[in-house]
């Protein structure tokens, strides 16, 4: 594997080494990176076969993790193992999968620095490095709150919930933006059902808090969630921006000057982008500044970002990464062939929303659209569970 820069295939080569393959490097083995790599294998089948194009998927984890599974772990419906598959098994054989960590990007030299290997160069680069949790941004949050946004958190919450029989359970959305924007609403509706099914609900007060003046950033989801909360005696507290958590006193102080008590705090922690992105000058806060239709970085040529790390005005959801991967694969393939890319992403976002433990709804929208929340049904709940199973076909690029 050379990772020496090649050029486009039009004859108007940008490289002094036209015999070297055109190097496409995708960084990140989550939904976006995996779907994209598989799409590239299809779009550039002939070029890869004759050695004109070489595609590498770089990930620091040999396992692919499907994070939506973690929502079900606290309720004992899924295990952490259900969320993992070997990345190599999900990626087309025409793609090189390399396990290493990207530590720096030089977009002028088109050079990548890796933790364990000599530098690579690229012709086209895709950053699909996702979002990470940053609970340390809020004093006391790490020690005082549970979460379900990772394997350890979801497992610890399962154990806590198993013995939680009475008291005040607070679901607090602390960090916005966060992955899977429907998940906090889903969790609180699921825990309501779960407690009722176990005869514990009468002894548990449930509260949901959100940082702005309504229950969700999307108005239709906020309206739907508020109605659900009212029907189920779930308290809704808005304009709650958590300043500090006192794990010993089990209290939370807010930026707005309020204070509340909890017995079990489930928080959506602050999220962070990537230091590599910020240090490369691709986005001040670690999210890559991109054109929202082409997903091309605004600060560098031949650099794309998809999934959670891309700063686009829609949700940080797996479906977004999935739907972004198609047009980006088309654009990259066009560029590799020396053609003018025309494919465009319209903001398509699809989210299933669990309304409890046996009913769900879903929303679908694009840039600037207001979604419609359909009535929840058992069928949509089964559809969501079915999709979670068939996700592994999605990652392979088959769905």
């Amino acid at each position, binding site marked *: 594997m050379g990772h020496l820069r090649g050029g486009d295939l039009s004859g108007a080569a940008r490289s002094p080494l036209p015999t070297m393959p055109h190097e496409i490097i995708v960084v990140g083995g989550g939904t976006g990176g995996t779907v994209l790599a598989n799409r590239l294998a299809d779009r550039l089948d002939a070029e890869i076969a004759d050695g004109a194009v070489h595609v590498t998927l770089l990930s620091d984890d040999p396992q692919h993790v499907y994070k939506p599974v973690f929502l079900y772990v606290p309720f004992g419906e899924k295990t952490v193992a259900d969320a993992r598959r070997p990345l190599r098994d999900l990626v087309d054989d025409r793609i090189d999968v390399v396990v290493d960590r990207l530590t720096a990007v030089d977009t002028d030299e088109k050079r990548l620095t890796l933790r364990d290997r000599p530098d690579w160069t690229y012709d086209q680069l895709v950053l699909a490095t996702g979002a990470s949790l940053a609970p340390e941004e809020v004093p006391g949050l790490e020690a005082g709150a549970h979460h379900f946004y990772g394997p350890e958190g979801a497992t610890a919450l399962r154990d806590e919930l198993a013995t939680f029989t009475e008291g005040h359970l607070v679901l607090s959305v602390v960090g916005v933006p966060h992955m899977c924007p429907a998940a906090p609403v889903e969790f609180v509706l699921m825990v309501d059902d779960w407690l009722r099914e176990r005869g514990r609900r009468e002894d548990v007060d449930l509260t949901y808090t959100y940082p*702005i003046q309504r229950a969700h950033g999307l108005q239709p989801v906020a309206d739907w969630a508020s109605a659900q909360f009212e029907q189920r005696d779930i308290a809704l507290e808005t304009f709650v921006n958590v*300043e500090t958590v006192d794990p010993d006193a089990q209290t939370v102080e807010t*930026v*707005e000057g309020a204070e509340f008590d909890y017995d079990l705090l489930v928080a959506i922690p602050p999220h962070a982008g990537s230091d590599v992105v910020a240090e490369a000058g691709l986005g001040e806060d670690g999210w890559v500044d991109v054109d929202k239709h082409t997903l091309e970085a605004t600060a560098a040529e031949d650099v794309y970002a998809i999934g959670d790390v891309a700063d686009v*005005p829609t949700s940080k959801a797996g479906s977004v990464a999935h739907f972004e991967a198609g047009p980006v694969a088309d654009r990259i393939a066009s560029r590799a062939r020396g053609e003018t890319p025309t494919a465009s992403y319209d903001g398509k976002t699809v989210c299933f929303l669990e309304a409890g433990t046996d009913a769900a709804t879903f929303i679908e929208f694009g840039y600037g659209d207001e979604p419609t929340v359909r009535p929840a049904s058992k069928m949509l709940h089964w559809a969501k569970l079915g999709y979670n199973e068939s996700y592994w076909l999605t990652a392979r690029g088959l769905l």
Partner: protein
Amino acid sequence: MSNTTYEPDETVDARGATCPGPLMDLIGKVKESDPGTVIELRTSDSGSKTDVPEWLDEAGHDLLGIEDAEEGSEWDIYVEVT
């Protein structure tokens, strides 16, 4: 920059972000600012014109003014941290 009335100490450029992005960006800046700091929030989300004043009222900070920056598609909102 359309402002001639206020002299911000800090500027939060949230243009291009949709709700709740601009308000959350402002809250983040307020959290790290000292009393007396004047913050300019640049936004292209029309909802900010109501979201931001409501939050300021809740949190006890001052709204200095809202100015049309780009013919009804961008606004500059001026806030003083108390």
